[in-house]
């Protein structure tokens, strides 16, 4: 426990890192399958089936990253878990009902009688929409410091819309990668139509964050700290430009580069998240509780860490394996 100095310092830091990684993996992975759900009304029945097939083998595992992220918050930073979730009581409830709806709709739409199928398609869309909107809303409230004022509420509504459109964008890039022909062309259009959500979302949060606290403002705009942060907006800008010009020309002959929009979207996600994490550190509840104050006892964290060191690489390994086994274009999803 004392390998890296004081365990009350390095253990909370490690767990904050693990939690951050889980949240990041979650918003990328479940981001694309939520996005596919949000795009459902724009697809015809045949395309819906193929879109479902493109996320079929993955969504269960994708959603468990949320359980891991919230689980880590719960076990490593119990008081922060309580403070954040009681403040976000209503959006959490809406998100949970949304997650339930879309999760079960996924199974039911394949098994229920044909006349009921459109009902479950709608449930899948509504569930995905509820989940995306409430996650965006929670993101906005979190950035603004979890205070229920009208301004914060309005800002959170904006981020709710932006994140939902952002999810639909990353969902569209996933569909570009996993499908072909007419649906792929349609997905390119969806991606072109959705990229603004991502840009505005990142923009709004970047604008708001430094003005919520002078501490973050100093971190951003004082010299030399400003230098550390400057690669993020520059790189993001270049990526957006590259994405935009690539989407104008897609799809390429022979399906070349079909994976690149998704990869670029992921890179944007990572940078936006990195910027946020850098700004809010060391606070887990913005400007109220630091990770060091909220952390569980070092003995307990250490026990969890041992398990994590064994389990996390394994999980990552077989996540990659599962994506490898189901690589390529989404084919008919058969239970055999």
């Amino acid at each position: 426990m004392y390998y890296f100095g004081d365990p009350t310092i390095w253990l909370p830091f490690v767990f904050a890192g693990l939690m951050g990684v889980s949240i990041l993996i979650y918003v990328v992975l479940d981001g694309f399958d939520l996005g596919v759900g949000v795009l459902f009304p724009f697809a015809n029945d045949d395309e819906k089936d193929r879109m479902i097939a493109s996320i079929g083998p993955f969504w269960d595992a994708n959603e468990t990253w949320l359980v891991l992220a919230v689980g880590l918050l719960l076990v490593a930073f119990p008081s922060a878990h309580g403070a954040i979730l009681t403040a976000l009581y209503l959006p959490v409830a809406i998100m949970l009902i949304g997650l339930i709806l879309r999760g079960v709709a996924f199974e039911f739409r394949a098994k229920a009688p044909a006349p009921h199928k459109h009902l479950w398609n709608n449930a899948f869309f509504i569930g995905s929409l509820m989940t995306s909107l409430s996650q965006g809303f929670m993101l906005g409230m979190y950035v603004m410091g979890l205070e229920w004022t009208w301004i914060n509420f309005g800002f959170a509504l904006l981020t709710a819309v932006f994140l939902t459109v952002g999810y639909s964008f990353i969902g569209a890039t996933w569909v570009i990668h996993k499908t072909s022909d007419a649906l792929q062309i349609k997905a390119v259009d969806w991606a072109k139509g959705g990229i603004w959500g991502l840009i505005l979302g990142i923009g709004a949060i970047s604008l708001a964050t430094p003005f919520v606290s002078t501490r973050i403002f100093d971190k951003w705009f004082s010299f030399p700290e400003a230098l550390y942060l400057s690669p993020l907006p520059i790189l993001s800008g270049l990526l957006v430009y590259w994405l935009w010009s690539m989407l104008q020309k897609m799809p390429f002959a022979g399906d070349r580069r079909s994976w690149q929009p998704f990869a670029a979207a992921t890179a944007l996600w990572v940078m936006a998240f990195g910027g946020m994490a850098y700004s809010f550190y060391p606070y887990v509840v913005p400007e109220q509780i630091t990770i060091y104050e909220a952390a569980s006892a070092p003995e307990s964290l250490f026990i969890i860490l041992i398990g994590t060191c064994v389990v996390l690489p394994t999980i990552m390994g077989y996540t990659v394996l599962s994506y490898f086994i189901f690589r390529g274009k989404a084919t008919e999803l058969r239970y055999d």
Partner: protein
Amino acid sequence: MELETLLLSRIQFAANISFHILFPTITIALGWVLLFFKLRYNRTGEERWMEAYRFWVKIFALSFAMGVVSGITMSFQFGTNWPGFMEKVGNIAGPLLAYEIMTAFFLEAVFLGIMLFGFSRVPNWVHTLATFLVAFGTMMSAFWIIVLNSWMHTPQGFEMIDGVAHATDWSAIIFNPSMPYRFTHMVLASFLTVSFLIAGVSAFRWLIGGRTEGVRVAMKSAIIAAALLIPVQILVGDFHGLNTKEYQPAKVAAMEGNWETGTGVPLILFAIPDEEARENKFEIGIPKLASFILTHDWNGEVQGLNDFVTEDGDVLHPRVSPVFWSFRVMVGSGLLMLLVSWTATYMILRRKRGIEGLPKPMLYGLVGMSFSGWLATLAGWYTTEIGRQPWLVQGVMTTKEAVADVPAPLVLGTLIAYLAVYAALLAAYIFVIFYLARKTARGEEIGTRIAPTPAPSPNAMPAE
């Protein structure tokens, strides 16, 4: 106001966890049953085992999805409604929950994709291995969560520093006194639930004309498994009860409806417990039997509920009627399961007639018993969980200390929304199971197709 929030939060948590437990109860055992079908197929090469596998793997997928989504709800509810719990005992509950999530949840979720959709994409042994890992993962998931739950009933291996629990001995925490009993009891409950579900749905398919070999082997295996397991379960339940008497005597007193400590206490079959007067109305009992069951001595002393009221008048035992009644529902449905499974087994084995030996009333009876395992399991959990009240962690913290100060109308509003969603989903779940059964009975292929084959493209998978 505060009391309303407490009561509503309790009802909300109870609703969520009751809905959730229905599905793990099915998947814990069904995973192993699927592995059994798969191994039989690997061994014999007989198509009927694969037919059974293909039908029940769909029910597994459906139950699994219901379990995952309702499980996510639980991990949030600790924070939204019960922040005090983790603040006080988070150092112990945290690692146990973490292990549950890490070792189990992922093992299930990742290999589930291969188990469900990978049969033609991976070698047969990988598919069998995936089936095993899913079954094993589900079981480990149950293990860790039962460890935590048991610790809340019989806490040990910790010390309190400044009002916060700190772990001192992890093996004492994991192997706490009630864990082995509770875990065995729950796993057996799961196997019985699945046995009756398979027997019931197979009987339904048989009745409407789906008399395939796959239905035959599934029904026969299920009935015989139920007949073998139910006496074991009754025995384990008895041991569990004795363990509870040692560590949580107030719960046993409530289960028995026994107000006064005494010797030669009767076993009460029926009564209406009156919480105000602290006595039973309309009591019907068998003399001295409770003493005999609990102490194995006709004149043994059994503690009564009145011992758990402090001099200040604080009541440190649960409300009696819910515990008293749910215990009777559990025992009653257990005895009914014993009766039905033994009679059915006798009919099957008599002159080796097999499934043909089951008369129509028995088949209808089995259909009616399809969800009897759910009833017994829920009743059992109500007995043990309500029986722990007013404690959240026995002797360490009360439920009231843990509740969040959320406005009651907000809790009520979300509770109504949850209940509406759960009711609709439960109806849809049961409907779809019987719909799939009807569809297969008509000889149609079910649910193998989720999406049509797309036009060939340069990147298409070479497999298949």
